């Protein structure tokens, strides 16, 4: 073990939850040139109650404007090993499946060029290599690129898109999120590596409204699988659930857990007759009943995606969730997802032209107004885009009768 004294950190070693301190300590043995000082600085932070990093904006690899985040310590004399401690973002395979072979390759690179510490994964979904020096960047990149691994987004770029595991393993997936996001990621390579937007732009895709990749809340453009037709019912399995309902030991209650929790109250259950009826025209596709009875209920067959735009963290104008732009878009693999790409194109064109500096697309929409924004993107107004129509009378009528004409006519 490293001989750096870290009495405070040591209290977080071991335990039942895997310890990050132990990870750093192991790497301090393995790659001491960075990690002894990493430990030292962290222990200092734990004692003086503050971080000790400074941002560095200038690091990168030739030709790319993204993928590297510069960091310097503010106490270089005490911890020269982390005087520079930049991170490298690498695009992971969509869906985050790996072979040990692939992982070992990446780990080998990182042992060679960096601290051996990493995040699997960053919250945007990148592989994060944590801590290296400026003059190692190009060298590392030579090797990664040669092996077919690419750098991820950062800065005012299209960030690394991400997907839930979707059809690879999930019975609820309405769209093939992994195929879609792999395709889109390749489509946005230039925008990902050469930031030219007013600010960052994130794309995430979830296979259904459960939204396991948090697209609705954390991506400027969210693609979320949905269906248009009826929820499919497996009659035999439904019978089993009714049986479960009637057995008090099972703790399963068809009325309280299913019907009464339906947000649109469109499920009628008759436990005596063992019937369940869904008024699908009122169903908001929330997934709840399907989640509760995954064997009996299934998403419909006429599937596509809701397209939402504008989610973001609070800075500056307050947090936003994505707002519905297109209530239903077919996600057509055979057409190379052209409809979606067209929308993306239009969005970027408008935003590059009209977005203000450091203004996320959601803030642009708020500023110009949703109705106006839809018009610019040639999208139809649809009541699914709103919770409710306006309650204020400040309507800007741009259609009205021309008095001269009327008078003349």
């Amino acid at each position, binding site marked *: 073990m490293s001989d750096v004294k870290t009495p*405070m950190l040591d209290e*977080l070693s071991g*335990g*039942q*939850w*895997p*310890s990050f*301190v*132990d*990870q750093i300590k*192991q790497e301090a043995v*393995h790659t001491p*040139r960075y990690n002894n000082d990493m430990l030292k600085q962290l222990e200092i*932070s*734990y004692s003086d109650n*503050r*971080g000790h*990093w*400074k*941002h560095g*904006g200038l690091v990168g690899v030739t030709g790319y404007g993204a993928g590297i985040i510069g960091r310097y310590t*503010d106490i270089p004399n005490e911890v020269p090993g982390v005087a520079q401690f930049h991170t490298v973002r690498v*695009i992971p*395979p*969509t869906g*985050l*499946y790996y072979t*040990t072979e*692939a*992982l070992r390759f990446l*780990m080998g690179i*990182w042992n*060679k*060029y960096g601290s*051996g510490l990493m995040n699997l994964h960053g*919250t945007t979904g990148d592989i994060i290599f944590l801590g290296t020096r400026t003059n*190692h960047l190009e*060298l590392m*990149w*030579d090797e990664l*690129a040669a092996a077919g*691994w*690419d750098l991820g987004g950062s800065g005012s770029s299209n960030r690394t898109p*991400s997907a839930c595991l979707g059809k690879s*393993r999930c*019975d609820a997936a309405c769209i093939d999120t992994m195929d879609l996001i792999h395709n889109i*990621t390749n489509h946005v390579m230039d925008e990902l590596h050469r930031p030219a937007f007013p600010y960052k732009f994130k794309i995430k895709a979830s296979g259904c*409204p459960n939204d396991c990749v*948090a697209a*609705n809340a954390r991506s400027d453009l969210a693609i*979320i699988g949905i269906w248009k037709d009826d929820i499919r019912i497996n009659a035999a399995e439904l019978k089993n659930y009714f049986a479960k309902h009637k057995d008090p030991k099972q703790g399963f209650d068809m009325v309280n857990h299913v019907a009464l929790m339906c*947000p649109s109250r469109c499920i009628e259950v008759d436990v005596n007759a063992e019937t369940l009826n869904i008024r699908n025209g009122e169903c908001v596709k929330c*997934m*709840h009943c399907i989640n*509760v009875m995954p*064997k009996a209920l299934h998403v419909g067959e006429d599937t596509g995606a809701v397209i939402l735009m504008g989610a973001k*963290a*609070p*800075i500056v104008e307050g947090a936003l969730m994505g707002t519905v732009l297109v209530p239903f878009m077919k996600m057509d693999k055979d057409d190379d997802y052209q409809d979606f790409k067209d929308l993306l194109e239009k969005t970027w064109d408008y935003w590059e032209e009209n977005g203000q500096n*450091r203004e996320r697309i959601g803030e642009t929409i708020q500023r110009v107004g949703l109705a106006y924004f839809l018009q610019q993107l040639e999208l139809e107004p649809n009541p699914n885009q709103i919770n409710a129509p306006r309650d204020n009378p400040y309507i800007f009528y741009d259609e009205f009768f021309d008095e001269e004409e009327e008078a003349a006519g």
Partner: protein
Amino acid sequence: MWVNISEEELKERAAVRKKRPSDMGPPHFEQFLPPVIQRNYGQWEWHEFLRPGVIEYRAASGESCYVVRCASPRLVGTTWMESICKVADEFADGYLRFTTRFNIEFNLADKSKIEPLIAKLESMGIPVGGTANSISNITHTQGWVHCHTSASDASGVVKNVMEEMIGEFKGHKLPQRVKVAFACCLNMCGAVHCSDIAILGIHRRPPKVNHSTLTNLCEIPTTVASCPTGAIRPTTVNGKPSVEVVESKCMYCGNCYTTCPSMPIHNAINDGISIWVGGKVANARSKPKFSKLAIPFLPNNPPKWPEVTQAVRKIVDVYASNAKDWERVGDWIDRIGWPKFFELTGFEFTKYHIDDYKLATRTMNMSCHIRF
């Protein structure tokens, strides 16, 4: 140069660098899918939780895929990862996966491998769980480990909270999933703005301007422009140009410090942690919700952050014993009302809880719906 590369190789590399491939995107995921998944891609019919941490997925073919999910500290070293790879080689034909919450998953075609795999993981001190009505891994950020604007440490707080919640990770004992998130500053790189329980590092004082170094290190116009709220303005200090911060306009985002290292935002005694509750992302039942302020300030108290751990414990316990099955934290609070939430948790309701930002109007109780 800390890397072991010969001068020669360096030169060689520089020569070929112009032709280095670029924009190749991610490797195609298909090559990383375990065979059982490749065979049944898109054909899954249902899933069932066999025990906490283990899910069976049944495909139309009749085949099943068994998932074993275990914890990861997210901040991992290659040493530890090598040991995980060994487990994957031994039990899962060399395949493994990460979830969107940093957990590690092994997808097995063979049901009989579940128990030995779990035994192996537990022997390595790695808990199995995080599925269904549990508290899964915490979505979190860099903290003092790597970010410059952090008001607290991410990994440290997460470690303490998960240590406390280990039973909830390993069991399905809650009314519903409880998604916990941590972010170290208002940028909220974690999912703090929409989590059942969110822990947010906060600065409470504006950056301090180091007038003596500022002109050396930073450009004044750029520094002024860096502030999203326009709180920074040029000034002259001791005859030297510098900047000053209008306190009432600063919302402690640290963006100025990103641009200019002479404006550190840290403040050892005033930085701390706030707790937020009731957010969610899923569209199940209610629409996605933002997290709402529960506790405006708890002190940074490393290495154990006992105040934070206890606050989370309190929320989890009160929720667990009061919510109905399938009710997320936010849905539960919406049903019983915020007055009851504060009563049950014993948290103090203060002026800080009352919104005063742009959309505050919509947070006011414009009705007689009152609870006593």
